[in-house]
């Protein structure tokens, strides 16, 4: 087991932590806006860490490039789609949760 393998393991463990955190947020938060926030932010960190971990194991430059491309795509897509969902929910009159509402 080389140093790189250990680093990969650590990064993947951290990634799993963020994914689990995102899921907990999804399960626990009260309204769609905060759920979007939990899911998008935590998962994007998780994706970044996973991509980084696999980059350490990549065999050639093209793999690193593809991993980077995947990461950028996921970031752009999930950020935009979460904005679209939130925006559309707001337009359709879903009330954001405030302290005091059940």
């Amino acid at each position: 087991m080389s140093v790189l393998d250990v680093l990969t393991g650590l990064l993947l463990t951290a990634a799993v932590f963020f994914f689990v955190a995102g899921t907990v947020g999804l399960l626990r938060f009260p309204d769609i806006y905060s759920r979007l926030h939990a899911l998008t932010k935590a998962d994007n960190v998780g994706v970044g860490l996973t991509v980084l971990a696999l980059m350490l194991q990549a065999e050639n430059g093209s793999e690193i490039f593809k991993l980077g491309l995947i990461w950028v795509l996921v970031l752009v897509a999930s950020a935009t789609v979460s904005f679209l969902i939130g925006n559309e929910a707001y337009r359709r009159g879903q009330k954001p949760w405030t302290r005091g509402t059940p």
Partner: protein
Amino acid sequence: MILQIFDWVLLPVIVALAWRSLNDRDLFRAVIKFIALGLLLAVAWVRLRAPDVALAEAAVGSGLTGALILSALVRMRRREQAATSEATGGIEVMRRVSIGILSLALFAALCWAVVALPARPTGLTEASLARLSESGVTNPVTAVLLNYRGYDTLLEVGVLLLAIIGVWSLRRGELPAADLSDRPLLLSLLRVVLPVLVLAAGYMLWIGAFAPGGAFQGGALLGGALVLLMLGGLARRVVNRSRLLRAGLVLGVLVFAMVCAITLLLTGGFLQYPSGSGGAWIMVIESAALISIGLTLGLLYLGGRPTGGQGDSADRSSSDHA
């Protein structure tokens, strides 16, 4: 061991999701579950080491099929708002139970049949891999598709053409008139995603010769790009050039048929490529097929023959009922 755990998580979820997606009381959510089912199936194909199929399932199986069903649902819902499904009763309990018993019997019979299959089927792996070097490509799946069983693929491209002809003769499709001016973020997403989609389609075509990929996966990505364009209301100029569109749709079948004719003349065998040059022929067919498949899959989403311009929605809906 750990793989078995993976299987035991994945498969029950797939089966449960299949059940829920077909029996959810809310049709909209049923469709979303159906899409999720397709994506989990793509994961299952990865697990079964079938990357070609995983690519196709992710792009076509769940992506485009899901988008198709979703837009059909919205279209139907708009028309029937007054008379929702409450008007009609479901099937009565007795029939439901008897169909259930029948299905369980079917399931039991299938289980028995499937488990009784030989543990190590005499597959065609060796036969197909042995002659891989003669096929002109190094991806075994592409070799099967276009060399050993080329006529299957010819018919398949024909099926695509038939489907779009059928769709066009049944209905006129309306281009969604989405307005991007109040959605600047969406426009910027399209600016990033569209070029990558087209690039990835070309990459799939090229890589298909040596590794998983090929015209169908590439075509599906191209179709996805077209769907995005139409969703954003940006496809009007493409979709309204009727002649060009038709030419693109038949290109795949035409080129394939021409290659058939040429190989018949050269070698005397139907789709028997002259020895050594199989790769070049396959590339020609795949490139033409890519364009036709992309256009077909994208235009299926429209759900009918494209109508010129916008603003004639009254016309269109009355033609629905002609």
